[in-house]
């Protein structure tokens, strides 16, 4: 029943963005290992967040423009379910590749070895939450011609908890403490977003189409 929604997308763009910003950090701050080691966990998390944000605008945009969003709304299948498949597709196309790219970025920013595993785990769960929460913003702004900037304005405050716990999981691990607590909280956030977000998105899409 689930059809591959988009075979070709701008899969690479958020990744390239991710990579380029990482190059900017040593250029802008300092290439010294001591400085970058401290910055690495937070920086990677912040940039991953921005890369996710950038990719969100396209989530429903083309469906809205070519009329397939209407068709989804008129499908006898429950809309939150269809929406969820789209969000999962988005996560597979942005979150997972971002996560897979982090070892490379970690090396470039001298992330201590203990940080890699928590970074990847926290990004795996965190990008899921970010796709879910962000899709609410995407659904709310899809009816706007220039929704991109407003989408970021609307979604960024909601990303605060994910960022805090995601980055701190890595920091704790680097300092040699246990980080399972943070991962558990990230997981709890992910589960609640998973349960609630599709309904909010479905409602928002109905409104956006209803004009």
């Amino acid at each position, binding site marked *: 029943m689930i059809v591959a929604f988009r075979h070709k997308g701008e899969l690479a763009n958020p990744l390239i963005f991710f990579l380029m910003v990482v190059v900017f950090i040593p250029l802008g701050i300092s290439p010294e290992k001591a400085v970058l080691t401290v910055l690495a966990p937070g920086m990677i998390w912040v940039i991953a967040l921005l890369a996710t944000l950038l990719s969100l605008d396209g989530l429903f945009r083309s469906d809205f423009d070519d009329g397939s969003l209407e068709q989804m709304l008129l499908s006898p299948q429950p809309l939150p379910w269809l929406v969820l498949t789209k969000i999962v597709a988005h996560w597979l196309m942005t979150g997972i590749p971002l996560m897979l790219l982090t070892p490379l970025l970690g090396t470039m920013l001298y992330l201590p070895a203990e940080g890699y595993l928590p970074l990847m785990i926290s990004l795996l769960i965190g990008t899921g939450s970010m796709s879910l929460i962000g899709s609410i913003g995407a659904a709310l702004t899809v009816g706007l011609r220039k929704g991109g900037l407003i989408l970021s304005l609307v979604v960024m405050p909601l990303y605060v908890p994910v960022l805090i*716990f995601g980055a701190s999981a890595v920091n704790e691990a680097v300092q040699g403490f246990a980080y399972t607590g943070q991962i558990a909280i990230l997981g709890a956030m992910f589960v609640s977003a998973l349960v609630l977000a599709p309904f909010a998105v479905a409602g928002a899409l109905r409104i956006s189409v209803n004009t």
Partner: protein
Amino acid sequence: MASWQWFHRLGSPKWFYEKTTRWTQVIGWLALAMLSVGIVWGLGFAPEELKQGNSYRIIYIHVPAAAVAMAGYYVMALSGAIGLIWRMKLSYMVMKCAAPIGAALTFAALFTGAVWGKPTWGDYWVWDARITSMLILFFLYLGVMALQEAYQNQEAADKTCAILSLVGMVNIPIIYKSVDWWFTLHQPATLKLTEKSSIAPEMAYPLILMIFAVYMFFAWLLLTKVRVEILHREVKTQWVKDIVMGAK
């Protein structure tokens, strides 16, 4: 024509407008009286604080503004929810009008906090848990306002903002808890002053009065703005035309 249902729906803002004409005035004067008494009492007569001297007096604006700014978000989100559930136009108007007032109060709280912070902590800005939460609340307000502005279609603007403020409301406790937790993790040693030791009653009474006064002020401002919004949106209807003609 009068039998058409959509006229009945329009009827409710009219009723609200007429009913609140008196109330707005009463609340307005009440707010003014409480504000003036509270400010004079707080700034003029309440005793000086031992450690901070007179600079602490800014709490008489800072604390009420912060408290009402928080409450304002709930007013906004709940009226948005009412609008979504019962399709009440009026409650969307309340939601729309609450956003800029709440944002202004949040800004006031942040600004007074910064002014207070300089003599107390030596910096205008400190990454304190409460300040950071306030700043994020400010962003949440700005998001709702930006979305409201972006839509040309009023109905779409109302409904999307209602959903957004509801999502925000669900998130506020999570954001606050996580910021608190983040702060305890990074807490620098210098910030002991945020934990207010039990406040003397002579200082507390004017503060309580000020909190109520700002609530009143919020209510008055909200009513006034909603009334203007009603006139603005219902400008095509006969009763608004009558009022405008009568006023001339």
